[in-house]
Each structure stands twice: as C-alpha cells, then as structure tokens.
C-alpha cells in the first residue's frame, strides 16, 4: 500500500513536469504548409479592424505587380547556379552583375534557376516595389524551381543604392553569394567616380565586390567620389574614409539633407543597409575607403591608418527637413519588442527571439490600411543587436532611447537596434501588400525574429512550405 502510494506520487510528479512540456512542445509545431498572412495574431495598433471594402475578397498579392505591358528600359537576365563548392553565382559571378538604372526607368529582370535544388527568388532590398515583385518565397511568389524562371518588373522611383538577394532559404543562399548590387542614378549624375563597395565576408574573409584585401580605386586629384557601401553580411559594418574629409550623402537609398564633413570617425552600416560616402580626392591623390578587417579601396597608395574610435551619430547628422507627413497624426501605433524567451520553436527547445513576448509563429501581424500614418516603437532587450528590415517601405527615425532626432530626416529600410536600445520610427502605409518586417541577420529570422506588416484588404495565394518548398528565410 505504502509502495503503491509512493509510485503514485512519483508518477504524479512526472506528469506534472512532462505534461506542460509536452503541451508547449505540441503547441509550438508549425504546420508543413501554411498561409503566412494568417499566422500569429492581428495587431491593429489602435486603428480600425477592417479596411476599406474592395468588393469581393480584397486584393491578391499576385495582382500587385509592376507595369505589365510597357517596354522595359533596363532588361537583365540572371541565371542562378549552385557551384560544386556550395557557393551560389548569378551569370557565373558572385556578387552577381551590377544592375544600373536611371530614376524613373522600368526595370525587367528575368530570374532563371539553373540548378539550385531548393529553389530561388530575388528580393529588391530597399526598393519599394509593388508587393508582387518583392520576391519573398511563400508570401509574394513561389520559389523558382530548377529549370523554371520568373520575371520581375518594376519602376525605380528613387535614386539610390540598393541590392538584390534571394529570399528563399535566404540565410544560406545570401551567405554563400546569391546577391548583387542595384544602383539607381539621378538622370544627371553630378559626381566624378561612382563606385560600388559591396561588402561580403566569404569563409572568414571580408571582400569588396568579391575581392579580399585591398583593391585599387581609380580616382584622380579633385575628382568627387561616391562610394556606395553595401553591407551584405549579418552584422554591423564600420566604414570610413581616410586621406580626405567625407560626407554621408545617403542612407538606404535616401539622400541626407545638409551633410557635413567628417574626419576621424567611422559610420556604421547596418546589415542589409547601404551608406553612400562622398569625398573630394585630395591634391596628393592618396585616399582610401576602409570597411574593416583589411578590406579597402585604395587610391594613390594611401597607407592604412588606425580604425577610428568614434562613430558618426546619424540621429544628429545633417540638418532637419520636412518629412512630407506628420508623425503626430499617426493612425496606428505599434510595439515591436524584441526579447529572448525559453520555449519551443517548431518543437525545438531553446532560448529563442521573442516579439512582444511571443515566439514565432504566435507573433503579431501588424495590420494597416492604405493611407495610415504608422508609428512603431522598436525595442531590444535580447542581448544582441538586430538589423531590422521592413520590406516595401522607408521609415524615418523619430527618436532613440527617448532622444528626438535632430539631424537630417533619417530614412531607412534597415536599422540596427542594439541591445538596450529603443527606436521610435514612423512611415506612411502607401504600398499595399503583405510585407516582411524581420531581422536581417538572416539566421535570426530563421530562429523566429520575423513578423509581417499586412494591409487589411490584401490576401496571398502563396503558401510557405507545400509543393513549392517555399522557405522565405
């Protein structure tokens, strides 16, 4: 009797431990195929729960495309290939070909999948394309299977520095080279030298435009150089110019208003972000653009100096200008609180990234309607930096840790939110669709730091998983 009583207690204690664990494990399992737009819970940010009625069933993502019939000004075909060493190339190179267009032109890119078994897509990072051209597998299109192709068509409305990369198994494909630069220039280009500085770390070696170490910068004295630094890695990058004072002319494809000369400081380029540095070549002809770890573009044999100890604070850099909308009249207010929590992510135990205290897929779906002015407070107490990237929109920084922005409007599509930091941002919801709002340390996105901004009247016919094998991160 006494023994059976003991066994009963032991069994009870076992159930008390394993029961909740099993419950949470089971609850965390993500179905094999699902509609991303229905995951998690709707967060209306204090706005109305329903959008304007558009007749039957609202807008489908696959109807939100670029101009269907007009003749493209820039036509490119990119063939994605997986090499035997695990790297990915586009038309045989990594980074892929540099695409250049003039503001206002219609760009047409045909993506052909040579042999990438898991499929590929192309996302136009920083270009606010129509949703159907955004290239997110399982949300805006199906991954392009081997032998198949997909045509992207969009008008480039803002001059600036952008890049493209796969958004199918992105953490692996981007890391292994499936990306390239997309440059949109003003109709009349004012500067002398327009130089892409595309930074990627391959197998522990930091490269600029695919080459490790130092490369030549062909610039002569008194020429103005625009160095378009693109950070294609997973962590923040420090860039700086030595030999001449430089300016941060643009951030994430948006011009900085009233940039001032910088010397002896570096500028942080967020993972996925871009910063255009401009400088006039000195009379000596010796200057260099450094991106750390020994990678640099060098003119006139300029010697490497020490890395600057300080960074430019973009919160107070440049002079204020009109935003074009009033953030005080926001119709939606969202919180995007990044933390870390013990739990199961699709059945896997661990301490995972949380959004507003929830683990993926039980994360907020930020719901907006076209025309809304949106404010979002992004805070991070997770212990690591997160380069947050919102697709399809440019937002402006209002404040950091309660300190209001005092410089040029700081427009961005990729923003480093450091541990312990809180950013208040605002944007206009002017591009209907279902847009990923995620961490561009792409492994973090795989590990659940992934939410969406969804317009109330938009639906998607695409599914994550399924026959197409869509795996957006």
């Amino acid at each position, binding site marked *: 009797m006494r023994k059976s009583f003991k066994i009963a207690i*032991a069994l009870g204690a076992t159930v008390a431990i394993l029961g909740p664990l099993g419950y949470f494990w089971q609850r965390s399992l993500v179905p094999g195929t699902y509609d991303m737009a229905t995951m998690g819970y709707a967060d209306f940010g204090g706005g109305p729960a329903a959008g304007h009625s558009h007749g039957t069933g609202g807008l489908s993502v696959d109807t939100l495309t670029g101009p269907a019939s007009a003749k493209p000004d820039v036509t490119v075909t990119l063939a994605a290939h997986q090499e035997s060493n695990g790297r990915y190339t586009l038309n045989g190179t990594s980074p892929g070909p540099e695409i250049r267009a003039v503001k206002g032109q219609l760009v047409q890119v045909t993506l052909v999948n040579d042999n990438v078994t898991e499929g590929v897509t192309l996302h136009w990072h920083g270009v606010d394309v129509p949703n159907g051209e955004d290239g997110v597998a399982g949300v805006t299109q199906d991954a392009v299977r081997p032998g198949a192709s997909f045509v992207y068509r969009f008008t480039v409305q803002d001059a600036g520095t952008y890049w493209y990369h796969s958004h199918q198994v992105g953490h692996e494909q981007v890391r292994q080279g499936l990306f390239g630069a997309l440059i949109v220039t003003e109709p009349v280009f004012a500067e002398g030298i327009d130089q892409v500085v595309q930074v990627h770390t391959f197998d*522990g070696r930091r490269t600029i435009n695919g080459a490790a170490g130092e490369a030549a910068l062909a610039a002569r004295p008194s020429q103005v150089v625009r160095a378009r630094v693109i950070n294609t*890695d997973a962590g923040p990058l420090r860039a700086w110019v030595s030999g001449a004072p430089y300016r941060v002319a643009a951030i994430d494809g948006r011009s900085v208003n009233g940039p001032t000369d910088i010397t002896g400081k570096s500028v942080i380029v967020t993972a996925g972000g871009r910063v255009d540095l401009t400088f006039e070549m000195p009379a000596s002809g010796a200057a260099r653009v450094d991106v750390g770890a020994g990678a640099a573009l060098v003119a006139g044999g300029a010697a490497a100096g020490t890395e600057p100890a300080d960074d430019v604070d973009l919160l107070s850099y440049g002079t204020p200008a009109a935003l074009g909308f009033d953030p005080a009249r926001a119709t939606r207010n969202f919180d995007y609180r990044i933390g870390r929590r013990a739990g199961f992510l699709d059945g896997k135990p661990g301490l995972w990234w949380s959004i507003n205290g929830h683990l993926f897929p039980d994360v907020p779906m930020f719901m907006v309607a076209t025309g809304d002015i949106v404010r979002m407070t992004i805070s991070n107490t997770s212990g690591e930096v997160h380069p947050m990237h919102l697709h399809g929109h440019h937002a402006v920084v209002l404040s950091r840790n309660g300190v209001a922005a005092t410089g040029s409007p700081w427009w961005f599509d990729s923003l480093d939110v450091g541990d312990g930091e809180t950013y208040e941002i605002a944007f206009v919801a002017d591009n209907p669709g279902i847009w990923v709002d995620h961490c561009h340390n792409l492994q973090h996105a795989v590990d659940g730091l992934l939410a969406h901004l969804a317009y109330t009247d938009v639906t998607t016919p695409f599914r994550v998983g399924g026959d197409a094998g869509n795996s957006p991160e």
Partner: protein
Amino acid sequence: MRAVYRILAMSIATGVVVQACAIAYALFDILHKTDDGQVFTKDSDNAGIAVHMVVGEMIVPVLVLALLIVSFFAGIPGGVKWAAITFGVLVLQIVLAYASYPVPVLGVLHAINAFALAAVASLAMRQARLAGSTQASTPVTA
C-alpha cells in the same frame, strides 16, 4: 533505477567536461584562423561553439530532466534532492550563459557555475552509489 540514476548523473558531469573541451577548442580555432587572415563575424561558423550550444541547450538539459524524473522512482535517500539541486544549478547556468551576451564578464560566473554543476551531479552520483552499497549489504545484516 539506481543504476540509471547513477549513469545519468555521471553523464551530466561528463557533459560539463565536454563543454569545457568544446569551448577551449573554439577559442584556439578562432585564434588560429586569425593567423590565416580570417575574421570572426556574425556569419562565422565554429564547430566548438556549435557543439557547446547543442550540448548545453539540448543534451545536458534532457539528461538533467531525466535525472529528476528517474529520481522520483529510484528511491535513493536524498536522490530527489540532489537531482533537484542539479536542475536548479543547470537553470542558473543557462541564465548566466544568455546574460553573458550583453555583459561578457558574467561569463566568469558561467565558468564557475559549470564546476558547481559537475560537483552537484557527482554528489548525486555518489548518493546513488551509497544507496546501492547500503542495499547490497542489507541482505547480509538482515
């Protein structure tokens, strides 16, 4: 059940040794690669760190949980107590690990607490061994 308890406790203590080995390898591997001009970034892979994360977040926690559950049935004097203490020390160990990301100096406590984990697991093991020897001697005296 006593043998299972003892083996689980021993495996936990061994797990701590494996963790120390993995992290030592990781550090020397990173240092060695800098000889070759490589940099360690957010994109970098490291086998030692990967092993440390799998053993620390999956294998040892499963072992500790199993020890706790087995302790309910093993009937070892003090067995549940030492399994529960081991569980508590492990939770502290994981908390210290993640607290060390923003505050690296806390890694020192993570290292010290690793010895504590090995120690309490060893005491649990000893408890099982003592209980086993008491039982073995019981028929003789009875």
